[in-house]
């Protein structure tokens, strides 16, 4: 099933400047795996050393945060859009 994956500006240098890519995938996890396999330099910005999504990486399926769905097991269907949305944190 073809799904669209929207790439935030900050990560576009790692996807050949593409704002979105399309993949065949059945779950959010599959889509992200394909993304980070295709564009390997992206992986360290999305996942920590334990292989978990970083806390400031937010994944939405059609505007719904996957934390409130089935997280990376969230099923996706043809025509869905997955968005990677940053949150920003820091401090002294």
């Amino acid at each position: 099933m073809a799904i669209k994956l929207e790439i935030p500006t900050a990560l576009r240098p790692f996807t050949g400047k593409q704002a979105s890519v399309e993949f065949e995938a059945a779950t959010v996890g599959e889509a992200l795996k394909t993304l980070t396999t295709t564009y390997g330099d992206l992986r360290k910005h999305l996942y920590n050393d334990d292989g978990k999504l970083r806390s400031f990486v937010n994944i939405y399926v059609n505007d719904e945060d996957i934390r409130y769905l089935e997280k990376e097991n969230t099923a996706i269907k043809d025509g869905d859009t997955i968005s990677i949305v940053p949150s920003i944190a820091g401090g002294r």
Partner: protein
Amino acid sequence: MSAAPTLFFSEEIARGIRECGARDYPNETCGAMLGVDGERREVRALFPLVNRRDDSPRNRFSVTAEDVRAAERAATEQGLELIGWYHSHPDHPARPSEFDREHAWPWYSYVIVSVAAGQPQDMTSWRLADDRSHYLPEELGAPQGK
């Protein structure tokens, strides 16, 4: 990315960031920087945000995904891009902390203004190295040779 990237902004923009830092002292201020990123990167407008870290606002700041989306919409409406973020370090140097690095995104410019006893001090800008290992200092420049 070039070895020594430069972030251009006017004195008015610089003053705006300093004023946010002084206004929110002793808490950390935060906001988005909207601008252009072509042959050179220039901040054209600020988008001040509320620091969402209610538990420790004096040494941390947080911008939610919804706030990021609002900043992106504001940039689009003005024909600009969301090119980076600013925040303050109250009573602390304008240097990125380990916490800053761990939570940084690549590509964005991160401006830090030091605020000592309520008075804005040094301002610096940084970009995360592509391998996340460290921050690269960014030169600060005035637009159009001012």
